[in-house]
């Protein structure tokens, strides 16, 4: 399998899927070329992501990246969240094929947009 067992596991048993009751940072992103879509919902309190849920449509890496990102982001500070990058996502998945780098980009951009949305209208 060209995907690592960890990636396949995240794809097959994705963590933190679904929606939150009261998110205060939400964004949806789409890759217009391949059609992958992701929605991220977070509850942020005192500069910490206390809850995170996501939904995604796309190839296995798109789903696995969203799952791995949610695990890394839950409980992290906004500062740390901003520092999340493709390298760490790939490491968390035991590798991500280069041709699937776009899956990580989509999730990272959407996370950043959700954080931006929170900054511009913080409802603590």
């Amino acid at each position, binding site marked *: 399998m060209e995907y690592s067992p960890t990636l396949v596991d995240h794809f097959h048993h994705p963590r933190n899927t679904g*929606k939150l009751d009261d998110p205060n940072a939400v964004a949806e992103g789409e890759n217009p070329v391949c059609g992958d879509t992701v929605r991220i919902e977070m509850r942020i309190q005192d500069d910490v992501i206390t809850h995170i849920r996501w939904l995604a449509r796309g190839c296995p890496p798109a*789903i696995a990246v969203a799952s791995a990102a949610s695990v890394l982001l839950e409980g992290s500070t906004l500062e740390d969240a901003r520092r999340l990058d493709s390298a760490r996502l790939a490491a968390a998945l035991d590798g991500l094929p280069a041709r699937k780098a776009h899956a990580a980009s989509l999730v990272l951009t959407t996370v950043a947009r959700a954080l931006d949305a929170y900054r511009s209208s913080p409802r603590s």
Partner: protein
Amino acid sequence: MRPVARIREEERRSPLKTSIYLDHAATTPLRAEVLQAMEPFLAGNYANPSSIYRPAQEARAALDRARDLTAAALGARSQEIVFTGGGTESDNAAIKGVALASRDRGRHVVTSAIEHHAVLHPIEELVERFGFESTIVPVDRCGLVSVEAIGAALRDDTVLVSVMWANNEIGTIQPVEAIAALTKARGIPFHVDAVQAAGALPIDLSRVPIDLLSISAHKFYGPKGVGALFVRGGTLWWPLITGGGQERNRRAGTENVAGMVGMARALELLMEERHTAYDHVRTLRDYLFAQIPPRIPGTRVNGHPESRLPNNANFSFEGVHGESLLVALDVAGIMASSGSACTSGSLEPSHVLQALGVSHAVAQGSLRLTVGRDNTQEQMERTVETLAGIVERLRGLAPVSERA
């Protein structure tokens, strides 16, 4: 719990044995009878058939017999069969060989939009490197090319028409007999890529005026890396690979004796079983067609309802990505393929589905299931259930705005 664990472990160790293989358009298992026919030339007689001594003459005789069998299976004459290193080589040899040999008479070639890359890329080479022009005739929403459209594309400087007998992704069978009548009337050489058709449909070149025809052994339970090109006597054509005088100067190189004997044996078995062989796969395939659309909402059948290979089914599931389907099926022990080329590095859906006018999203959700002789009804039932569960799960993951 023990037995299940043992089954799982076996499955892990030998997935092809215990899983469900539904990718016979990609390749087929080597039949035991075929391997048996090959063995004398793998482990026993290794002589070069061009040599003079007795084992070499026996190898030569085996090659001759393989050629006779191949010719008989296609309704051709033995001297019209050129053994090659596979379907792609056959296609390249046919297309470049005819076009370059005729380039002083004209530099125009005609083909269809849903040919295999083994046809389209050689034609691109002719255009980009050798000053040819090509007309790529479109297909309808079922993947059918129209005979009239081919006729309209023909020009006085057309030196080659190449249309596949049946498509590898959606299984659509093209009206090659009618096209052959047309090209024959116009005196234009006609090449047919029959890589998917051979093994799934009867082919009789004594009845259809096709000039060149490609086949590939691993698509009909023969070995990989072996194919044949039929070249009708009198066709103006240059060989692709020159050197020693093998294949009567039409394809040089020490012969893969075991491979050629294996291909011929596979064709022989096909001939013996032809009256019943297609029924089995058709029954199983028809079960998929009958069950999947009602069972899974938002299913679309790609390809032609009737004019299609008996073993081919191709679906799209709204809102589901093809590769995710494939990986989830693989985890469940079902081997299938997607119409999307996404898996091979490109983000684009396959040129075949695009040519049908299918939307990008639908094309990306496509799933090809191609049935083979070892599949069973029980496997089909398991496939339908598993597939329904996977589609449901994946759709449940999609953002609300996306749900079907």
